[in-house]
Structures are given as C-alpha cells and as structure tokens.
C-alpha cells in the first residue's frame, strides 16, 4: 500500500470529537481494559455529538490535523434523544464539502460507538490511523484552501424544521 512519496515515519495527527456519554466512555473503557492502540488520535470531549459544529472539523484541518474522527452514540441511543441524528446530517454535508476541496474521504469519519464498545474504539482508531498513514500528510495547499474559504457561507446550516429534512442528509 505504502506510496514511495510517503515518508515511512509519517505519524498522522488525528483529532477526534467524542460525545461524553457513549464514545468518550467507550474510550475510557478501552483504557481501563488496557487495550493498546495507535497514539495518533487526540480526543476532544463534548456532551453530545449534536454539538459537533462543522467549523470544528475545518478548524482541526486548518490547525494541522491530518484527519478528523467523530464519535457518538448509536442511533436511538442518544443521551439527548436525537443529537446524533443531527451529527449524521451535518457529517454527510461536511464530507461532501471537504471532498469538493480535494480532501480525501478517508480523512473524515463518523462512528457510532456505545459506552460498552471499548474494542470498537481500538479497532476504529487503528484502522483510521493505518488508512491516513497510507494517504500521507494533508498538503499545505489544501489547508490553505480551508483558511481562505468562507466557511460559514459554504456550509449552510443544514437544520431546518424536522419535517423538511426527513429522508436523509446528503
């Protein structure tokens, strides 16, 4: 897989946003169970995946992240009823936007990880780290693009009244 242009020692930096109740707890569980995984992911905690603002993702890329991982409760399990559905809708839009800027699909990922799924945290982080390592660092040009883009205009807030958004996100 490894590309000759990719430095062998490239260690990607991945910023993760985890919700407090499911995925952050699962990451704690992975720790308590001493599951070993790649050290490339740095977690920022919010109370709910509903708090994940697309701007956070762009900011992470801008500030030097090679990838962004989002983690929330499984559908139907949100501690705040449906914040994760909001996260999902934003995710699809956000990924499309990033792709349009030439940022590869594998650099942004959304996973549902329940509080009991420590092993899934381990698996997800290992998989993602390997995938991003294969992609290599995010180029400076693309980061620069994110600097210049008028993001608030580009990402029209996807929410409107629930009835209008029924039927999917992308």
């Amino acid at each position, binding site marked *: 897989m490894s590309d000759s242009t990719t430095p062998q020692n490239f260690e990607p930096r991945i910023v993760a946003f985890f919700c407090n109740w499911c995925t952050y707890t699962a990451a*704690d569980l992975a720790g308590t169970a001493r599951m070993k995984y790649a050290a490339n992911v*740095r977690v920022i905690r*919010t109370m709910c995946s509903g708090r994940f*603002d697309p701007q956070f993702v762009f900011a992470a890329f801008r500030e030097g992240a090679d990838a962004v991982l989002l983690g929330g409760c499984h559908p*139907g*399990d949100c501690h705040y009823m449906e914040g994760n559905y909001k996260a999902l809708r934003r995710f699809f839009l956000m990924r499309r936007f990033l792709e349009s800027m030439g940022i590869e699909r594998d650099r942004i990922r959304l996973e549902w990880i329940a509080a009991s799924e420590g092993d899934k945290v381990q698996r997800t982080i290992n998989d993602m780290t390997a995938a991003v390592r294969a992609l290599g660092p995010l180029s400076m040009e693309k980061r620069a693009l994110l600097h210049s883009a008028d993001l608030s205009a580009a990402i029209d807030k996807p929410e409107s009244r629930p009835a209008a958004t029924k039927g999917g996100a992308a």
Partner: protein
Amino acid sequence: MSAEMSTNGAPKVGVYVCHCGINIAHTVDVNACTAFAASLPYVTVAREYKFMCSDPGQEIIQQDLRDGKINRVVVASCSPLMHEGTFRKATAVGGGNAFMFQMANIREHVSWVTLDKEMATDKAKALIAAAVSRVVHHAPLVRNRVPVHPDVMIVGGGIAGIHAALTMADAGKKVYLVEREPTIGGHMAKFDKTFPTLDCSACILTPKMSAVRSHPNITLWTYSEVAEVSGFVGNFKVKVRRKPRYVKEDQCVGCLDCIDACIYKTAKVPDEFNVGLSKRKPIYVPFPQATPLVAVIDPETCIEFKTHRCKKSCAEVCQKDAIDFTQTEQIAEVEVGSIILATGFKTFDATRIARYGYGKYANVYTSLEVERMVNAAGPTAGEVKLADGSKPKSVAIVHCVGSRDAHTNRYCSRVCCMYSLKLAHLLKERTEAEVYNFYIDMRTPGKGYEEFYDRLLQENVHFVRGRVAEISDWAMEKQEEGKLTIRVEDTLVGVVRRIPVDMVVLSVGLEPQADADDVRRKFNISCSHEGWFLERHPKLAPVSTFTDGVFLAGACQGPKDIPDSVAQAGAAAAEALALIDRGYVELEPNTAYSREELCSSCHTCVALCPYGAITFDTTKHAAVVNGALCKGCGTCVASCPSGALQQNLFTDEQIFEEIKGVLKYV
C-alpha cells in the same frame, strides 16, 4: 453569563501532572510533560505529584490558589468521568471557581492504551496544551439547585425490588412498586430451597411479599408496566400502563371461588408460573401465595372474551361482584424524584443448543422446570417424575448451558454452579437416583458456598469435569437402550465417556430480559455488550447509572444470586435515600444561553431542541433559552449560524482553543 475572558485578573494557569503511582508514569514521561507545561503561555505553575487525587495532592493545588499563584487549574491525570468532581471541588475549596478547571486525560486515553513511551509522552503533551489553551477562556459559573421529589418508583417486584421497596418505605418514603406480572415475587417465588443454607424460599420470601402489600407507604401496581418517563433527576414524570385484570383489585378477597366456578372444569392453558409443566384456567391466580391475592382473567383464552356467550359463572359466584369484564387499560401518571430498576433476568432458551435435545427428548428439562418440580407447592407436589410418570434412577445435571460460550453468551452466569449443587442435593434426597454433575469449573465463591460443595462431594454425587458435548438417544450398548446418553470428555482422566441417564437437567444461564433494550431506552440508560444495564462504575458506583437519579438493583445489572441481589437492592435504596434526604440536586452548568443581540431570527434552534427549552421572543426578536429546561447537549449551539447561541463549558471559543492547543505544539 458570558464566556469571555474572565474578570478574575490575567489568566494564571497551574498545571498538575499526576503519576498515578506508575499507572501514568510507567508510560508517560511525567517530568518532560511538566517541563513542557511550564513553557506554555499563561502557565505560572507546573508541578508533578504521585497521586493528585489524594489529600496532599489536592492540597498542592489549593495552596497555589491561596498563594495567588494561579487562578485557573489544569490537572493531567485520569478521565474527567473519574475525578473531575474531585478536582473541581478542590479548586473551589482553594478559593477558586470550580469551573475554572480543566482536566487532561492522560491515563485512560494515553498511558493505558499506548505501548510506545515517546508517542505516549507526545500525546500527553498535546492533551495538556489543549487543556491549558482552553482553560484560559473559562469563566466562573454557578450551579443551579433543583429540589428533589421525595417519592420513589421501583420497577420490578422480584426479591431485589421488594427489598428496595421495603427499605425505602421503612425510611418513611412513599414508594410506587410496579410489576409486570399479576403477582410480585419474581423468580425467587418459584424456587423450593435456596443455596447454600437450603432454607425454604417461600418461608423467607412470602413474609416480605405480604409486608409490601400491607405497607402504608407502598403503592403496589402489579400487572402494570412503565409506559413513558420524562423529566430528570429529582423530578421524573412516569406514566404507568395498568393492564386490566377484569377483576377489581379493591373488591377481590382472594377466596378463589371464581376459579372453581369457571365453566372450564379442567385447566387447559399452560401455566406460566409453572413454566408450562401444568395447566391453569382462563381465570387464575399464579400461585397460592400470590401478592396481591387477586384473580386475573386471561382474555386470550376466556370464553366470554372470545364468544361473548359465556354464562359467566365466575361473576355469578363472586359475592363481592369483583369480576368486571368491562375493565380497560388505565394510564397512571406519577411524579417521583428517583427510580430504582429491578427488572431481573430471563433464563437461557435451551432449544438454542440443538445438541442437548431440549424440546426433542421428553426427559431433558431446564433447571427452572426442575425447580418447580422439586417444589412441594409445584405441579408435581415435589415429586421428581419422568415424562412417563416413573422416578428417574439416574440424572445428569449439565452446567454452563448458554454460558461461557461464544455461540450463546460468553459470560459466566455465576449462579448455576451453586443452584446445580442444590438441585443435585434435592434430586438425591427425593429420588435416590445416581446424580452426575458435568461442569467446566466449579465456581463457588461466597459465604458458605465452598462448604456446600464440600458437602455435596460427600453425598455420593458424581462430578465429571467436562462440558457435555451431546445428549442423544442412540445406544452403543445394552445399558444405553431407552436412555439418554451423555457424551463428554472426563477431562481429569483424559477419556471420553458415555453415560446413560433417565433424566437430564440443563443448568441454563441468566440473560437480560427480552425487552431490556426497550426498557433502558425508556429510562435513558446504557447496556453492556451482553445487554445488562450498565452501572456508572463497576466498582465505585455499581448501583448508579449514567442517568442521575436512576439506580439499579438485582440481576438486571448482571447475573446475581439472592444474597447479592438483596445487598444491591439495599445499596440502591441507600443511594436513593441519600438523594432524597439531601433535598436538592445541583445541575451541571453546561446549559446553553443566547447572546440575543447576535440572533438573526432564523428559528433554526427552536425546532431543534428536544426539550422545548428554546422559544422565540417576538419582542426581543431573538431566541431565548430556558436554563431550567435545557439539558446541555449543545445541539442548538452547533446549528446557530450567527453564533448567538453558546453553551457554558463548551463555548465555540473554548473548543476552538482546545483544537488549536491540541495541534499547536506536538
């Protein structure tokens, strides 16, 4: 309240890196992290210490606060879910505001999960930098207090629910006890004897059941289920669906004349309480000590419900006119401050292991069926009989059916070894049969348990160490003809044995209730992988959940025997009492607020809030947040195009700073 840089003077951040013994220090270079922290902007103090959470550790922080060296605190140690409360308190005690604090999780997220020391240290540094750059933008906050409703709801009327209810009621609290079945008592009411003392289950349980019935502080709702839960700790609203029994509970005196009078002269319907080993009539009580002792009509089988042409002899004979075919489902709504879930377990469905022949061979029984069989009040009046009515001369008890197996349940069901020993004893006592126990490991930890095993070893019971491979009716030799043959490796001898027996008892494991997933959603709690309700912390908060005010008792949290269920029920009651007697709860101040002047009146947030906490104020032309209703998810904040909405502790600025910090240095 604003999250702008506080008025608390220029930011002076103290960073405290914890060794956690060697838990962190073994993998993370604590000294390097401390030196790194000292180099960060606004950091005025950076220290390391063996155990930051200990009294002396907290004292270090407090002293620095008192000395005016710092006005913001970062502790790099374990998960905030573990000790955030501890350090916030320490910060407050030292004279700071509890929320001018941030934690960096370098144990669960770093030292315990990383092999490489260098990478672990780098990751720890990044997390510390993130916390520092964020805490600079923290603002002092106050917690709101809300009163706690003193009533409690207990869901499930097995031994755990009963014990919790009596404990709470005896402490003077009003208790609603909700039970799905027509009677309380749960699984324990089905057993004949209890291990390891062999005292009679009914003798110790029925007095508690009638105490529930007569207790002035307990409202007992049997044949009822929780339909809906709303609200939050201290202030839950619960809707309970009360199914119609078609017998008025307040009129029925439990004479049971109606049952005798039913036009069905013989019982035809499989009796749920006797796990199908006997039959009941459409009008019935589950068992003679049922509490409340009130008959129930099963509309699925009652002639009146099916044809409307029954002569209703049950109603005719009732002197209290208690029979009421017109009853309908009722919804009762109550307010309570706390909830204890004691919804119990179900036994493993033995048909799932085809090799054991349950459902195929008449003389293969589950342990629960045999519990009923050996019960003097059971379907056979305590006699152990084969399908043809004869007494078995040999019995095999097969352990670990549906437990310790990747194809069914990986976990050990914990109670089966002991109840198998108990059944071995009872079967020996009742039938004088040869009794074989087939086990993988004999698990008897508990007071008096190993002694009980020792006793059985002396009772001429055979013990074969090996998991039974298959049970079948093909005979290889004369002795096996007409019998069930167990094929198993006697692992202690290293030889495969074939043992013909008359009867097989499958010691089925414990599983979460079939609807555990629906129930946990109703109460907004989590389940473990296997489907058991998840406790807040396996050791330090075993009866709490991640939802404040909802507690767990008994086997709904994991397989448990009677002593453990009762102990846990007591613990859950104590937690609920502590909550009630404190009288109030302090809420996390992580609610949303609106900077009204920035609101662009798009209304997006109003429709998004699942709690209806946001309204649009037409005079101010701005969205406003009702802090009492807001639960602090932050969904509205992420959706606000103008940045008018912000969330305390999670403002845009704080999170952007955290992102910058986590990437800037390492």
